[in-house]
Every structure is written in C-alpha cells, then in structure tokens.
C-alpha cells in the first residue's frame, strides 16, 4: 500500500516525513509492546501503536520500520519528533483507535507481517 493511501485512509496528520508519498509499504504491525515489534515485524512495514514515546521510534529504527502511526490522536513530545526526524522515520497521528485504524488498512488490502 502506498504511503499516501495510508495517510488518506487514517485521516492522518503528518508530523515528520522524508520519503516519497508514492513509496510502497509492504506490511503492518500493530502493538504497544516493543518486543513484539522486534519479534514479529519485517522491514518496510508500518507500525501502528498507542505508545506515543521515543521508544516506539527507537524500536522502529532498529527493526527497519519506515512509518509509525500513533493512534487516538496521541501527540508525542519534542524529543520523540526530533528522533523520528533524525532517523528519517515518517511519523503520523491518526484520530482513530488502533482497532479502527487496523480495520481501515486491512479492508484496503494491507496485511500483517508474516511470522
């Protein structure tokens, strides 16, 4: 799924972005548990999480995740935004809950990282 479609489907606010809006994102991972991200995710995924903290960005950087979405309109602090910018991670905020956000992306064909 293209990045621009993820942004549109989630009615997302773009906090940081350093990549093409046409970029293809292959998989999705949704969790608040950072070890689950490390255990189950694949590179070139979008992470959907309620953990609007630096840890989500740091973990995504380690796991080669390019796009992070914070759910329920949670706004990160400036350190988190700065880290996302430095690591060239696209950071989005969606007003939707994790359940609804996942549903919207799944409905249009995006799938969970294969285990």
């Amino acid at each position, binding site marked *: 799924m293209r990045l621009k479609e993820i942004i549109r489907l989630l009615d997302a606010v773009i906090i940081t972005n350093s990549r093409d809006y046409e970029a293809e994102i292959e998989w999705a991972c949704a969790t608040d*548990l950072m070890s689950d991200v*490390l255990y189950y995710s694949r590179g070139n995924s979008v992470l959907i999480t309620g*953990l609007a*903290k630096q*840890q989500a960005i*740091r*973990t995504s950087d*380690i*796991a*080669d995740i390019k796009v992070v979405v914070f759910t329920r309109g949670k706004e990160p602090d400036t350190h988190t935004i700065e880290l996302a910018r430095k690591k060239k991670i696209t950071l989005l905020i969606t007003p939707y809950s994790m359940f609804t956000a996942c549903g919207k992306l799944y409905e249009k064909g995006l799938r969970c990282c294969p285990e």
Partner: protein
Amino acid sequence: MTDKTYEGSFHIVGGDFSHAGEASTELKTILLNAGVEDEFVRRVAIATFEAEMNIMIYATAGILRYIISPEEIRIIAQDMGPGIEDIELAMQEGYSTAPDWVREMGWGAGMGLPNMKKNADIFRIDSVVGEGTTVEMIIKR
C-alpha cells in the same frame, strides 16, 4: 566487511531510558557503514537492542562488547544485576518480572530473551543470583 577482526564496547547505565537503544543504534550504523547485508544487520541490531534493554531495565550497569570478524559477530552482554533465578522459566515467551513503570514504556512483555535466541545462531546465558547475568550471542553472516 573488511578482512580484519575488530572489536569495541559500550557501557550501559541502568534505569536511563532517555539513552536506551543508543548503543545498538551505533553498532547498527557501524555494520551498515561496513557494507554488510541488511538482513544480517537487522538480526544483530534486534538481538543487541534486546540485550541492551535488559541491562537498562534490570541492572545497575553493564557492558556490551562486540567482536566483528568477516564471518560473524560475537556479542557479549554482561551486567551487574539481580541475576536470574530460573533461566528455563525466563526463556519462556511471555514470562517477565518487569515492574509496571517498564511496561508503561512498552517493554517487559517477556519476549526479550526468546528474541535474542531467535536472532542468534549460538546463544548462551549464564547467571548468578545477586551478582549478574552474562549473555553471549554469535550471529553468522
């Protein structure tokens, strides 16, 4: 990667979430700059990050050492922590003794040690209650 073997280390301070993950990020950058395959770098980064987080969460302090050779990387994470009473139990997915403040930061899901084992070709753990824990991982290219 060059033909040489080279090594280095990072000191980790317990309880310091603001710098958590910086050692692993730096090691990842070293490997990427050396031109190593992405998938190998990802495995090393994930295994090291979990080890670094464990030191940060449970121990007073610790040291992460790495030895890179053309064929593999050896990572030794040694901490001055409480030690692990039952290693077999600690290796089970989902088992955790992490306090609530750690869980609020997105950690303590009980996947750290299993995740290190998953990404390493050779995984060894040695622990003495009241003294500390040493994890050794070898990841082959």
